[in-house]
């Protein structure tokens, strides 16, 4: 069921290792700043590179301030007629860890601060929303939140949707990925022959989607989902699930492969993920649009990745710039186009990929809004 509506991204805000605003994020990427830091506190006897937010305020405060900023810059007086959709993989695990590691007991854990829902729970103390829902599909969580936002706008169920992708650093994720032997000791270099692995990171990404466009809107014009049904942590080596998600997204957007100008890759920097995604992209896009991973700046922000990479994709369209890869010295593919410099281009459509544990895949298509 579709009625004749569209989903426009009208306002957004981002906080990550690459900056305390969306503008800082985009500038960090275009200027190829070093945003990933080396840490020796999370993993015993080992240094790992992580993406840490550089701000004295707490994650909760930054989250509330971010939603306030988006509200202030929007056409809305408040969020009372807005659906809140949260995408998170970690939720309140960091809070749980601090209590459990201190007490060595579950006794003083507040379950409302532990779950994925803790993000919505805290935001609802500050703002009144019409309704809310939280998605947790690991690293596709906020990409799926954006997909659902488009769905409810196009079906005419809501006029305003606030998507919040948020995940903070915690021992569970950093040590967990270390246990899988996929962490890099240096800033990640997706699609490079000499890559070491990924960087676990934290971020908050907030987007207001509405069914009416405003000045500088970008349209979320396609969403594609798929399941690999292959393996819990390894994507299909040929990228079959990724292919299905991208094909479904382009079909939903009613555009052809040749119309895509830039692909913001999931590109974690692990061999399995990069090869699978590269195989999918190379087999679908014979026109070789630019492919790049911005995780070399933000790190892998897990449940927030889909939303923060959506913001980067939107800004590429607004500024008509293809953003560069960082430290990609020896690309391991010659059938894919990469750029190591920010390139001014005519951009009409950008695809953003998100893939997750369990073979959960989501691709989003963003389109430049024409005057009419």
């Amino acid at each position: 069921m579709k009625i004749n509506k569209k989903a426009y991204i009208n306002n957004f805000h981002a906080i990550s290792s690459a900056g305390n605003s969306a503008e800082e994020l985009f500038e960090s990427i275009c200027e190829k700043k070093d945003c990933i830091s080396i840490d020796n506190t999370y993993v015993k006897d080992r240094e790992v590179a992580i993406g840490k937010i550089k701000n004295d305020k707490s994650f909760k405060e930054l989250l509330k301030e971010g939603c306030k900023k988006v509200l202030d810059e929007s056409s809305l007086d408040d969020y009372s007629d807005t659906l809140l959709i949260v995408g998170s993989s970690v939720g309140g695990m960091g809070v749980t860890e601090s209590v459990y590691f201190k007490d060595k007991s579950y006794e003083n854990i507040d379950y409302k601060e532990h779950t994925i829902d803790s993000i919505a729970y805290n935001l609802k103390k500050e703002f009144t929303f019409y309704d809310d829902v939280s998605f947790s599909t690991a690293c596709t969580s906020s990409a799926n939140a954006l997909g659902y936002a488009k769905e409810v706008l196009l079906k005419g169920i809501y006029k305003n949707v606030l998507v919040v992708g948020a995940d903070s650093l915690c021992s569970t994720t950093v040590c967990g990925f270390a246990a899988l032997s996929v962490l890099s000791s240096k800033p990640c270099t997706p699609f490079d022959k000499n890559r070491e692995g990924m960087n676990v990171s934290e971020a908050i990404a907030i987007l207001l989607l509405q069914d009416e466009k405003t000045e500088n809107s970008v349209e979320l014009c396609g969403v594609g989902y798929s399941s690999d049904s292959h393996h819990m942590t390894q994507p299909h080596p040929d990228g079959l699930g990724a292919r299905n998600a991208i094909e479904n997204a382009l079909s939903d957007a009613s555009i052809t492969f040749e119309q895509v100008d830039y692909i913001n890759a999931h590109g974690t920097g692990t061999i399995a993920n990069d090869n699978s995604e590269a195989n999918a992209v190379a087999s679908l896009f014979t026109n070789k649009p630019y492919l790049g991973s911005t995780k070399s700046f933000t790190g892998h922000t897990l449940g927030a990745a889909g939303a923060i990479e959506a913001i980067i994709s939107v800004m590429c369209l607004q500024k008509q710039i293809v953003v560069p890869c960082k430290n990609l010295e020896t690309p391991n593919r010659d059938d894919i186009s990469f750029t190591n410099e920010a390139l001014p281009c005519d951009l009409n459509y950008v695809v953003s990929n998100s893939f997750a544990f369990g073979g959960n895949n989501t691709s989003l298509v963003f389109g430049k809004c024409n005057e009419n």
Partner: protein
Amino acid sequence: MKINLEILSATHLVADEEIGDLRTKELVPKMVFRRRLTRAAKLVVEAVDKVGFENGRIVYGSAFGELKASANILSAILNDQMISPTDFQNSVYNTAVSYLSILKNNKNEILTISSGDKTAEKILKVGAIKALDGDEILLLASETMNIENIEQINKCIDTLENVVALKVRVTEEKANINILNENNSKYPESISQMIEIAKNYDENKQNVIEIQI
């Protein structure tokens, strides 16, 4: 806005500690795969078999996710031990339905919701909105809380293992099952609403619920 859903099939399983008589060995013949399944994954496989859902879109939910895997990870970190890679891969909230998708070769959209005590309500709403597209959708929820020392935090839930499945599609028919908004049951509040719907399901008549969006 309201959307009416016909419940085409429903099942629920609950137990104070552990749901018995699972047919996991029969339903998941490959031992290597079966051994990796979390408790929630085993319950989900069982429930899906009972409602006869093979392939299609799934909206799954759990407020607390994979508690055992998370507890094992926390304990390992606290005690300076190595984290089990299997525990980590099994700790994400979409673990149960991911194993299900591998088992059933289901390549469709599979969403996982975690909205605290309102998880069931949100599964029903999201499921109803998705069902407007006309397909049959599986609504699925589980809570598996039977872990060591759970009594330190659980003061009110009697049933530590719970799973519920509703196979639905949109209908124009009038609702004939009331949805309770208050939780007066012994089940986890997060999914009790769906368990109550499953309990009221009568396979000898048409079963319709009204979802207020």
